[in-house]
C-alpha cells in the first residue's frame, strides 16, 4: 500500500477567522508515507491547518495539493482522507462495528467486503469481540482504537490526527503513541499529527514542524529540532533549556560570537545567528543533560563551582539546580545503578559543559 501513498503539499496557505489571522502563510511538503507532526503552543494554528487539509475549512489564500491534484476545491467527502478527532467523534448511536463500517458504507462497497474489512481493521487495533458495544460502553483507549480503525479502514490517501491522545492518561498515551507509530509504518500511510506535546512529537514523527503564531518556524527530524533548534522559541519549546544571559562583544574571524556572560563576566566564544551587533543582549541556551558533574579538564570545557539550590529526583534521572557565579544552571544527571548518592541540597559542587553545546539566540521580544 505504501507504493500508492500520496504526498501533501501546502503553499502560501492563509486563513482568517473574522479579524483573526489564524494561519499566516504556511508552506509544507509532506512526502508520501511520511509521518509529520505539527507542534506548537495553543492557538498557533495547528488545528486550523489540519482542518484545511481535511477540507473542513477553506483557505483564504494558497494552494493545497494531495498527490498531484489541487485539492482546494475538493469537498472533504471526496478527498479520501482519514481523520481522528480530538474527542474521537465516534457516532454515539452506532455500534463499534457500524462506526468502523461507516466510511465503507458511504463508499457503497458490497456487504461482504465491508464485513471482512471491518473485521480485519478491528483485529489490527485489537478490538475483536467488541463489535456490538456502543461508544459509551468503551474505555478511553478503546474509543481511540475505534477512531483509528474507522479512519484507516477506508484506505485513505492521508491520515490526519488532531491531538487524539490528549484525553488519555500518561501511561496509555505512551502506549498508544507506539501503537500508532507501528501501525503507520506498517500501512505506510502519509500522516499528519497535530500535538502540543513535545514528547509525543519526538516519539511519533519522521519530521517535526514547529509552528508559532500561524507560521512554521522550523521543520526537521526530531534530532535536528532537539539538537539544533533554529530560534529561541524552538529551543525553549522543545525539551528543557538553561537560558543564560550574555552580551555580545563582537564577531571572530571564524564567524563565532564573543560574548560576556551576565552576571559573572565570563567571556567565551559561541555559535550564533548572523546579524548580531556588539552590545546586543542575547541568551545562551544549554540543555541540562550537557551539564556534567565534576567534569574532566579538557580544552573547550567551561567549569564553574556553585552550591546545590534544589534537587528533583525523577527515577532514571535527577535534576540539580546549581547556583553559580554565572547564574542558576540545571544539570540532568543519570541515576547510577543501585541508587548511588547524588549531591544534596546545600552541597558545594563543581560542574562543567562544552562551549560548543551552547547556542546563542536573541531573547524573545517580551523578555
Amino acid at each position, binding site marked *: 500500500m505504501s507504493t500508492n501513498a500520496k504526498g501533501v503539499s501546502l503553499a502560501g496557505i492563509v486563513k482568517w477567522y473574522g479579524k483573526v489571522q489564524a494561519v499566516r502563510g504556511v508552506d509544507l511538503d509532506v512526502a508520501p508515507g511520511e509521518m509529520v507532526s505539527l507542534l506548537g503552543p495553543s492557538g498557533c494554528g495547528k488545528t486550523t491547518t489540519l482542518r484545511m487539509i*481535511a*477540507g*473542513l475549512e477553506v483557505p483564504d489564500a494558497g494552494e493545497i495539493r494531495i498527490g498531484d491534484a489541487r485539492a482546494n476545491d475538493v*469537498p*472533504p*467527502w*471526496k*478527498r*479520501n*482522507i*482519514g*481523520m481522528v*478527532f*480530538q*474527542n474521537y*467523534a*465516534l*457516532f*454515539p*448511536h452506532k455500534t463499534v462495528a457500524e462506526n468502523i463500517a*461507516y*466510511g465503507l458504507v*458511504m*463508499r457503497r462497497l458490497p456487504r461482504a467486503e465491508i464485513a471482512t474489512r471491518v473485521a480485519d481493521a478491528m483485529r489490527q487495533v485489537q478490538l475483536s469481540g467488541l463489535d456490538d458495544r456502543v461508544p459509551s460502553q468503551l474505555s478511553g483507549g478503546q474509543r481511540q482504537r475505534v477512531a483509528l480503525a*474507522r*479512519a484507516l479502514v*477506508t484506505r485513505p490517501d492521508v491520515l*490526519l490526527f488532531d491531538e487524539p491522545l490528549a484525553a488519555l492518561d500518561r501511561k496509555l498515551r505512551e502506549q498508544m503513541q507506539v501503537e500508532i507509530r507501528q501501525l503507520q509504518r506498517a500501512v505506510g500511510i502519509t500522516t499528519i499529527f497535530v500535538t502540543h506535546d513535545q514528547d509525543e512529537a519526538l516519539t511519533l514523527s519522521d519530521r517535526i514542524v514547529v509552528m508559532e503564531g500561524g507560521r512554521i518556524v522550523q521543520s526537521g527530524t526530531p534530532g535536528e529540532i532537539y539538537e539544533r533548534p533554529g530560534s529561541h522559541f524552538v529551543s525553549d519549546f522543545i525539551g528543557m533549556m538553561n537560558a543564560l544571559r550574555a552580551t555580545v562583544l563582537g564577531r571572530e574571524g571564524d564567524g563565532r560570537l564573543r560574548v560576556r556572560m551576565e552576571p559573572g563576566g565570563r567571556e567565551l566564544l559561541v555559535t550564533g545567528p548572523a546579524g548580531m551587533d556588539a552590545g546586543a543582549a542575547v541568551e545562551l541556551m544549554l540543555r541540562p543533560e550537557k551539564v556534567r558533574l565534576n567534569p574532566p579538564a579538557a580544552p573547550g570545557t567551561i567549569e564553574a563551582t556553585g552550591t546545590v539550590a534544589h534537587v528533583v529526583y525523577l527515577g532514571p534521572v535527577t535534576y540539580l539546580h546549581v547556583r553559580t557565579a554565572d547564574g542558576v544552571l540545571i544539570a540532568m544527571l543519570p541515576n547510577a545503578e543501585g541508587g548511588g548518592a547524588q549531591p544534596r541540597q546545600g552541597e558545594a559542587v563543581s560542574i562543567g559543559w562544552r562551549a560548543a553545546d551552547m547556542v546563542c539566540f536573541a531573547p524573545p521580544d517580551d523578555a
Partner: protein
Amino acid sequence: MTSKRLLSAYVVVMMVFLALPIAVVIPSAFSAGSDLSFPPQGFSLKWFAAILERPAILAAAWNSAAIAVVATAVSLVVGTLSAFALRRYRFPGRAALATLFMTPLVFPAIVLAAAIAMVLAPLGLIRTFQGLVLAHIVIVLPYVVRTVSATLAEIDKAWEEAALTLGASPWEGFRTITLPLLRPGLVAGATFSLIISFDEFTISLFLVGSGMMTLPIEMYNYAEFSLDPTLAAVSTLLILLTTLAVLAVERTVGLGKQFA
C-alpha cells in the same frame, strides 16, 4: 422530619387539586342521567354513543385533527431548519430572530389572536382551513424550535464533520448521523405541537365561523345550550388520547429530558 412531612402533605394536596377536574369529568361521562352533575347517576355508555349523533362535533373534531396534523408537519420542517440556522450558524440578526421565534410563548394569547386576525382578514383567510393552519403554525413553531434546538445542542458538530471526512455528503451525513440523533427532539416537538394545536382556543376563536369550527370552540358552543354528559364523554376521549400520546413519547424518548 416535620418539614419533610409537610412537603409530602403539600404534594398530596397539589396532586388532588390538579387531578380533581379529571376525577370529576371521567365518571360524569359514564352517567346514566341526563345532566352534567356530580356524582353521576348510574352507569351507561350512551353519552359516548350520543357523540356520533352530533355531526357538528364530529366535523369540528375532524377539522381540529387535520389542522393539528398539517400545522405540526409544517412546523417540524420549518422548526428544524430554523433550529439548525440558530444553533449552527452565526449571522447578523441571529439573536433577534431567536427572540422572535419565542415571542408567541410569552405574548398574551388574546393580543396575538387579534393581531393574527387583522393580518388574515384582508387576505380572505378568516373562516378557512388554511387560515387556521397558518395561525396554529405561529403558535406551535416555538415549541418545535425549542425541543429541536435543545436536542441539537447535544449533537457534537464533530460527528457531522467525521461523517464528511469518511465520505458522506452533507445530506448523507444529516440523514445517517444528525437525523437519528435528532429524533427524540422531533418526537417530543411533534407531540407538544399536536396537543397544543388540538387544544387551542383563544386564537382560533377569532378565525372560526360556520362551516369551519374547531373542536374546543364547538364544545364551548354546545355547552352554552345544553349541559348534558356528551361534553364529559368528548373530554374523556381527549384525556385518553393525550395520555396515550404523552406515554408514547415518554416510552420512546423520555419527556423529562425535554424539560430538564
